[in-house]
């Protein structure tokens, strides 16, 4: 027929989902769905396709030629009929609905664009808003309004203005209206909605109604609308309904109770016996319904229902033997859903229980034998049997039967069956891995996407290879994943990677990438292969791969494969280096991959002597240049360059800085990113050191070395002793100090200059380092005098408040305000603590005995922070200490670095070590540099103990402003020396953060984090790879934004309010804190 040819052409040239004119659409919408199914799958597909092509062709034809006469000729009788019907609907208001409603639906259907549809709906909303509130709306009208509201909401628009009317409608006596009301309410409201309270009463009443349909409607609503709190209100009535005369009601009551169980198990815990009782209900439907809660109970705790196994088995037997009334049959299959549910329950009950399983064997083999495998539903039962057999205690005969069913599935034409077959195979191979072998071809077939398919309708419409079935493919990969052994890992992973490259779905890409990584790590036949595989994964899915994976890779390269074979390890490394040098030039590599590359090149690039330092450095410079907007990559690159040169220096070779390196350093030292700046300065500093110092700070290949930390700070004992003798006060732990105390000292320091209107806490000046030694006793005692507010939360709030600029200052430039706030935040941990240990430590005369390392850590931390203007307070990095530290223990400083990570519950040394090394090495710089020492301040214990909040709290601080000034002046000058491990910063912060919340000082930490937002990237970038840390990191990264946003205004407002109420801002603001914290 010429029409068909035409349509074929049109079909080929048109996108699949092209919009057609409404006329065409309408008529296609009247195609009876019935034509799309029939008993047998094949014919149904054929018919389906025929009809579909017809419909589409017809639409297209209609649209393209607009010739209705031609069209009419093509219409078969049925289509004419349906069009007539449609016209009839439109004109006479078909289903008893008003013309308005029909017009609405129709015009929305006719809308040609989303915008047009929105316009229509918005107009409708306006109309409804107006009319629904009119007095005396007839009920029938109101019902229609409600239905229109539901319709609108289904289209994605807000109909909340009408919720209350839907609620009102549930109160109506008329069944029709009540049901409409309940329908609308269940669609509109969630169980925590405030309007629910208005419905509970109605529901209670309706549950007692003598009209069983009202009861059913109420039960439907109960399922959706009752939450934990309201369960008790309706529970008695629902339980009563278990004995209702109508089986439909009993059934629904059981399911409503099941729902309660899902929502709040304790609330219905006493009803388990009723569920059991309902299993013996006269009506099979009710029995079937009771299987749902029983299934949940079994999956929660199989042992509790073991005694029911016999009952389940006998029920299953009876059902399978067609003992139920005919009305429970579905496609000649007796009560299939009940069978499936029972099989699922049995699978759980029999798992690992030989005795229990033995009871099931007979019935299972019966089902295998009898079940009709030609129908869909029969297959679903068979599949369920396979699952059951693979879950219970194995029985060889049953396994055989299961394997046979599985192979039938796999050989089937239908993709659905293949899917089930693959899934079943995946279950069976757990018991018997050999089963998979005979199905190799079928599996491969599923992977390839099947053969070319025949087209229907005689004409070959689309002659192309069958589209691969994505779902099937994924399922197959899942199977392969389970099947992977070291013998087939190469093939499977290669396949997976190919597939990964071909798909665009990020979610699945991520999953499959991580599976590749996992398999590769587990089964890698050779190092070479492993690295190549990882390279591929990173190259194509680098941005999707978990950061952990990258860290793992670095660790693996650093540690080798665990054998004590140094040769193999170094071979692995050099092959990694080579492959990276090859890849590095490719454009558009994912950031994470580049980071790995940079790290490896920095660490091992020159290790085997094949490549010269300047060659590697040049490559790294290229990377930094090419990805100039990716700070993380740049940071990795510059650190890597530093390492490369450091190794050169340590090896006694002269280094020549390439011009591009020099320009990179110059560029970075003026960077906006404090981290980059710091790294650049560190590098410059390190390049000027002598051989010995460099060797100490940057030992070759030490990334895996464990770093020990002296947690008790015993090395400080003599120092503390000395200070005490000199009159310093002993340290008072956080919990012994009152919250007020902190506030006091804090305010006095920060606000002294800026604001005078607040309470003056002059008395607390003590903690200022310079003053400290003299005024020691004051702060503590006085603090107690103030209203003590012991709860930790309070303290936090206070800090929050304090960090705000005073209201009077509000007029000042915002930038400035914020800066102040931040500074305070930064300062807090330090100066808020007046403890003597602080004061003592701040003195430049300090002489750490054994704990030099820690002091280094301190120095690093503070020095790094100084890059940022925000951080500037801390930046007076106690150069004295640095010097001290450096001279005392040059190389060991890396221990400090390790510290933070270890403070989170002793991580596995190996996992953290890789990263630590990078930090560690950088961190060493300052120690070795004696020149940078100056007199001042931040006490070492502080930094040391960032990990432990208590300690950090207690640290005294130098006057922040002074420090700031100092920074401004000297910062640039001395920066070379002082800029140290920026990397440490994030980590330390993390450690700090992670620990503090427990001690109640999290507010403080938050502040830090916020102040550090500029460095957030870093945080995530460098935060320790230890698994523990991931958690921490995510929280901390998440926090700052919340904080940043609302903070200034909100808190200002609250501050003001507080003032009005007559309270000092610093004292209150619990709300503020809560807001910030979410």
């Amino acid at each position: 027929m010429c029409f068909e040819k035409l349509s074929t052409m049109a079909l080929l040239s048109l996108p699949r989902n092209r919009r057609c004119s409404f006329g065409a659409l309408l008529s296609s919408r009247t195609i009876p769905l019935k034509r799309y199914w029939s008993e047998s799958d094949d014919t149904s597909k054929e018919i389906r396709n025929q009809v579909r092509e017809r419909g589409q062709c017809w639409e297209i034809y209609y649209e393209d030629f607009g010739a209705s006469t031609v069209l009419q000729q093509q219409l078969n009788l049925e289509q004419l009929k349906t069009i007539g019907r449609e016209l009839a609907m439109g004109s006479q208001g078909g289903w008893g609905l008003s013309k308005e409603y029909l017009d609405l639906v129709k015009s929305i259907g006719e809308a040609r664009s989303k915008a047009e549809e929105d316009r229509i709906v918005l107009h409708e909303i306006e109309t409804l808003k107006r009319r629904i509130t009119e007095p005396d709306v007839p009920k029938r009208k109101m019902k229609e309004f409600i239905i229109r509201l539901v319709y609108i909401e289904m289209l994605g628009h807000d109909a909340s203005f009408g919720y209350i009317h839907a609620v009102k409608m549930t109160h109506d006596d008329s069944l029709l209206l009540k049901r409409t009301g309940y329908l609308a309410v269940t669609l509109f409201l969630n169980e925590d909605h405030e309007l629910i309270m208005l419905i509970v009463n109605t529901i209670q009443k309706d549950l007692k109604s003598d009209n069983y349909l009202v009861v059913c409607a109420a039960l439907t609503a109960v399922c959706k609308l009752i939450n934990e709190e309201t369960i008790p209100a309706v529970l008695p009535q629902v339980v009563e309904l278990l004995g209702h005369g109508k089986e439909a009601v009993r059934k629904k009551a059981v399911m409503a109770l099941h729902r309660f169980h899902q929502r709040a198990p304790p609330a219905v815990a006493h009803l388990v016996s009723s569920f059991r009782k309902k299993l013996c209900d006269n009506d099979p439907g009710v029995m079937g319904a009771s299987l749902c809660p029983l299934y949940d109970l079994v999956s929660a705790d199989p042992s509790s229902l073991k005694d029911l196994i016999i009952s389940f088995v006998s029920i299953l037997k009876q059902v399978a033997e067609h003992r139920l009334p005919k009305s429970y049959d579905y496609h000649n299959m007796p009560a299939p859903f009940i069978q499936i549910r029972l099989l699922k329950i049995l699978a759980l009950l029999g798992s690992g229980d030989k005795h229990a399983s033995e009871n099931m064997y007979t019935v299972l083999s019966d089902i295998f034998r009898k079940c009709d495998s030609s129908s869909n539903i029969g297959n679903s039962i068979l599949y369920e049997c396979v699952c059951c057999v693979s879950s219970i205690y194995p029985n060889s005969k049953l396994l055989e039967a299961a394997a046979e069913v599985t192979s039938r599935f796999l050989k089937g034409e239908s993709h659905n069956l293949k899917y089930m077959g693959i899934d079943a195979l995946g279950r069976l191979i757990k018991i018997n891995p050999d089963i998979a072998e005979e199905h190799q071809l079928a599996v491969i077939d599923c992977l390839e996407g099947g053969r070319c398919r025949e087209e229907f309708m005689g004409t070959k419409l689309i002659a192309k290879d069958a589209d691969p079935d994505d779902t099937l493919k994924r399922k197959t990969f899942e199977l392969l994943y389970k099947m992977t052994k070291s013998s087939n890992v190469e093939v499977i992973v290669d396949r997976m990677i190919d597939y990964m490259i071909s798909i665009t779905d990020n979610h699945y890409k991520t999953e499959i990438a991580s599976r590749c990584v996992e398999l590769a790590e587990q089964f890698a036949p050779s190092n070479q292969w492993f690295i190549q595989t990882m390279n591929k994964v990173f190259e194509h899915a680098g941005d999707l791969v978990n950061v952990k994976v990258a860290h793992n890779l670095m660790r693996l390269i650093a540690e080798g494969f665990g054998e004590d074979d140094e040769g193999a390890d170094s071979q692995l490394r050099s092959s990694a280096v080579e492959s990276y040098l090859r890849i590095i030039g490719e454009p558009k590599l994912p950031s994470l991959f580049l980071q790995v590359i940079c790290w490896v090149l920095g660490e091992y690039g020159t290790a085997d002597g094949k490549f010269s330092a300047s060659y590697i450095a040049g490559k790294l410079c290229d990377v930094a240049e090419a990805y100039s907007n990716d700070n993380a990559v740049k940071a990795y690159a510059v650190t890597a360059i530093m390492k490369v040169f450091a190794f050169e220096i340590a090896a006694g070779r002269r280094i020549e800085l390439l011009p591009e390196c020099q320009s990179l350093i110059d560029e970075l030292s003026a960077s906006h990113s404090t981290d980059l700046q710091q790294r650049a300065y560190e590098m410059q500093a390190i390049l000027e050191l002598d051989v010995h110092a460099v060797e100490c700070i940057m030992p070759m290949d030490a990334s895996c070395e464990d770093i020990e930390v002296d947690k008790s700070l015993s090395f400080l004992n003599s120092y503390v002793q000395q200070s005490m003798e000199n009159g310093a006060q002993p340290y008072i732990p956080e919990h012994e100090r009152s919250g007020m105390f902190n506030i006091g000292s804090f305010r006095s320091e920060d606000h002294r200059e800026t604001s005078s209107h607040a309470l003056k806490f002059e008395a607390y000046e003590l903690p200022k380092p310079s003053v400290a030694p003299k005024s020691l006793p004051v702060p503590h005692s006085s603090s107690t005098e103030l209203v003590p507010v012991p709860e930790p939360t309070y303290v936090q709030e206070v800090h929050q408040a304090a960090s705000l600029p005073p209201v009077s200052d509000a007029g000042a430039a915002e930038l400035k305000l914020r800066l102040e706030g931040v500074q305070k935040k930064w300062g807090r941990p330090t100066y808020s603590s007046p403890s003597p240990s602080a004061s003592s430590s701040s003195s430049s005369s300090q002489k750490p005995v054994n704990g030099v390392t820690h002091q280094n850590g301190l120095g690093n931390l503070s020095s790094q922070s100084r890059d940022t203007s925000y951080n500037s307070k801390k930046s007076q990095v106690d150069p004295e200490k640095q010097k001290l530290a450096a001279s005392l223990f040059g190389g060991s400083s890396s221990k400090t670095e390790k510290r933070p990570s270890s403070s989170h519950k002793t991580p596995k040394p190996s996992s953290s070590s890789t990263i630590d090394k990078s930090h560690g090495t950088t961190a060493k710089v300052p120690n070795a540099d004696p020149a940078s020492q100056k007199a001042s301040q931040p006490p070492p214990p502080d930094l040391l103990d960032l990990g432990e909040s208590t300690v950090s709290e207690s640290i005294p601080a130098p006057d922040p402003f002074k420090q700031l000034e100092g920074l401004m002046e000297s910062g640039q000058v001395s920066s070379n020396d002082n800029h140290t491990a920026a990397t440490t910063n994030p980590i330390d912060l993390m450690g700090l953060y992670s620990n503090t919340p427990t001690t109640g000082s999290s507010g403080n930490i938050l502040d830090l984090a916020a102040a550090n937002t500029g460095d957030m990237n870093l945080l995530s970038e460098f935060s320790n790879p230890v698994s523990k840390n991931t958690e921490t990191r995510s929280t901390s990264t998440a926090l700052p934004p919340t904080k940043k946003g609302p903070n200034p205004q909100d808190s200002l407002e609250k501050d003001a309010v507080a003032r009005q109420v007559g309270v000092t801002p610093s004292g209150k603001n619990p709300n503020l804190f809560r807001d910030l914290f979410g």
Partner: protein
Amino acid sequence: MIRAVMVMNTQGKPRLAKFYHYLPPEKQQELIRSVFAVLSNRPDNVSDFVEADSIFGPDSRLVYKHYATLYFVFVFDSSENELAMLDLIQVFVETLDKCFKNVCELDIVFNFTKIHTVLDEIVFGGQVLETSSSEVMKAVEEIARLEKASNAITLVPKSVSSWQTR
């Protein structure tokens, strides 16, 4: 349990959306859109199953069936059987067909309250309630009959009286 039932046409317009856990309307729309995006890209001859983890969160599968201009979509978790769900869709559509005599998209558009009624008789609170379409039909007809009766008794007099008072 069954998490959601959706009916949408081949243009991606929702015709029925029922979620057995509450979701805000915006989220529902988003889900419908993403489901449609997946379905419309699936070729004809493939399986009716989709792993929907990326849309509905972990442990969720999706089964759909394409009839004429409509997609029928059921979303559920691992406590249900995919093939059985496919048959449940069939039950649903067969019932609709009995309800409307050659059901087509327009019937569903204009009668979606009735569709909800039918669905509520098949799936209740996320669990399969009834799989026999004739049983469902009986229940639905009973509801229709009683609704009419209650209309006759209560609605008419009330509307008349309100009309009289005006």
